[in-house]
């Protein structure tokens, strides 16, 4: 049960951070005309193709007592970053970044540019245009970003194992817990945890589809599916 609560806590933190940080990043990637934009796009998409162990390895090195992040954390907070909950959050944010940013980019880009022109001509600056026009019309993308980063963090395994290790109550998430149970042939325990994870995932996705159906009707938009946004 501790593992499940830890996983939920981790997923909440990661989705919140990704939503706050992902929006400016996605806005910039969606609307910037900078010629080197493709470089940043590739960096953001990297976790999609990189083996979790590779990402985890580099994050672990950076967080280690001699790594840049580790030393920075040491001076700021007086303890290391590796094998802590904070370290786990940081690694998970990196790992789930494309799952939050890409749906946001897709939905920002799908907003009719003429609406943005109309807003500008009517005197609205960028910030007001974002809050009053772009964001309300991107609700499906925001919901997708939240759900995908939440679900992806709940289910991650490799990165957690590399960066967090397997410390009960601190870094032992539910997926690692299941793995442990299977390793020690406790199939009943593993099954219980796996079922809970399955139920949560299913419930969240059902909710998302229902919300989008509603939003789609209100705005007369095409029905959206989370997988099309990738």
């Amino acid at each position, binding site marked *: 049960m501790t593992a499940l609560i830890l996983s939920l806590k981790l997923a909440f933190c990661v989705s919140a951070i990704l939503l706050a940080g992902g929006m400016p990043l996605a806005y910039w990637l969606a609307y910037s005309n900078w010629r080197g934009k493709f470089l940043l796009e590739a960096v953001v998409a990297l976790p999609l193709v990189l083996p979790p162990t590779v990402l985890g390895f580099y994050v672990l090195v950076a967080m280690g007592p001699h790594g840049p992040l580790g030393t920075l954390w040491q001076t700021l907070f007086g303890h290391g970053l590796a094998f802590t909950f904070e370290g786990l959050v940081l690694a998970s944010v990196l790992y789930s970044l494309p799952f939050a940013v890409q749906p946001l980019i897709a939905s920002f880009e799908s907003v*009719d540019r*003429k*609406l943005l*022109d*109309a*807003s*500008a*001509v*009517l*005197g*609205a*600056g960028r910030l*007001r245009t974002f809050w*009053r*026009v772009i964001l*309300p*019309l991107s609700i499906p993308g925001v919901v997708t970003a939240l759900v995908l980063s939440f679900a992806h963090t709940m289910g991650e395994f490799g990165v957690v194992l590399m960066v967090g290790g397997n410390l009960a109550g601190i870094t032992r998430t539910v997926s690692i817990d299941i793995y442990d149970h299977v390793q020690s042939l406790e199939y009943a325990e593993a099954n219980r945890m796996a079922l809970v994870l399955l139920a949560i995932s299913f419930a969240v996705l059902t909710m998302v589809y229902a919300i989008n159906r509603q939003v789609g009707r*209100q*705005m*007369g938009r095409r029905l959206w599916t989370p997988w099309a946004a990738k």
Partner: protein
Amino acid sequence: MDTVGGEVDSAMLTARLKLERRRASSSPFVLDVSIEIPPGFSILFGPSGAGKSTVLDCIAGLVRPDGGSITAGSEVLFDSESRVNCPPQARRVAYVFQTLALFPHMSVEENVAYGLNGLPQAERSARVEELLSAFRVEKLRARRPLEISGGERQRIALARSLVTQPRVLLLDEPLTGLDAELKAAIVDDLRAWNAAHGIPILYVTHTRDEVDALGERVIAMDHGRVVSQGTPLEVLEAPRRKRLAQAAGFENMLSGTIVDLREADGVMRVRLSESSCEIEVPLGHAKTGDRVHIAIRAGDILLATVKPEGLSARNVIEGRIVSMEARGTLIRLRVDCGVEFIVHLTPGATQSLELSAGKRVWLVLKTHSCHLVEE
């Protein structure tokens, strides 16, 4: 920033614009225009791709020209020499797009109030109320744009753009797709609003009907340049360019070679391509042997069933009716005279002359119904 009460700010809009855009497939698009728009309706007319919308985008500040200047009254909105480039938010230029671009997630009232950010609530409501009633859409205030008709959406878009008390109004074919009656009703309301405000209104269109219906002043554009300006009659009756002539509704576009110049008579004879047919057209800047294009309106051609005599018209051409089809309130005939002519007649005339496909007829063209056009 506002003109107070009924005070009228009668300011001229002037724009000198130069802009070059590279295009992947063809030669670069070059815009080079200089226009002056006094208060009241002016029409920017020309075929698709002539650069009309780009002119509006430049005036609104959505596109930055390479050079030139834009002023509204005494206010400089853009000037490449003194490096002034007022952002669209600060230009007080209202712009109604072809797609209208109403915010789909907001009610009609929220849409109209959008441009009034920062005003006290009471003034906001008063202004929104004024515009909703000026365009007769008070009853729709709680609806969303998707729940109302096309004509109503156009009224809302006008109300939304004018609520900010702009000094210029730009309209990019906002009334296309409406029937003539509805269009006239909306334009009347817009004229009534502008009677009190007197701002320059620049209306872009590529259809001749709208020029006839709205026009006081017409500026005709093609290939990024102003090709003529004046009253609708002046601009549309004598188009100097082929594409413009097509847009202006000249159904017959013929090409031919000059065989004879009769300067004393003020005419020249032109042999139409691929036929033995010769017609007389007004004298133009050309010499014998030059290839020319001639535009003739289908409605300007007379048709006779016996060979006419004793006419002032110089061009009488024999031919045969190829086909007849009803087009709304008129009949469209294709007549083969070696080259094919399109002729428009009323159903009454068609009946009394007992016309049918295959019948032998004579076409009568007045010299001055034949307009010389440039390529």
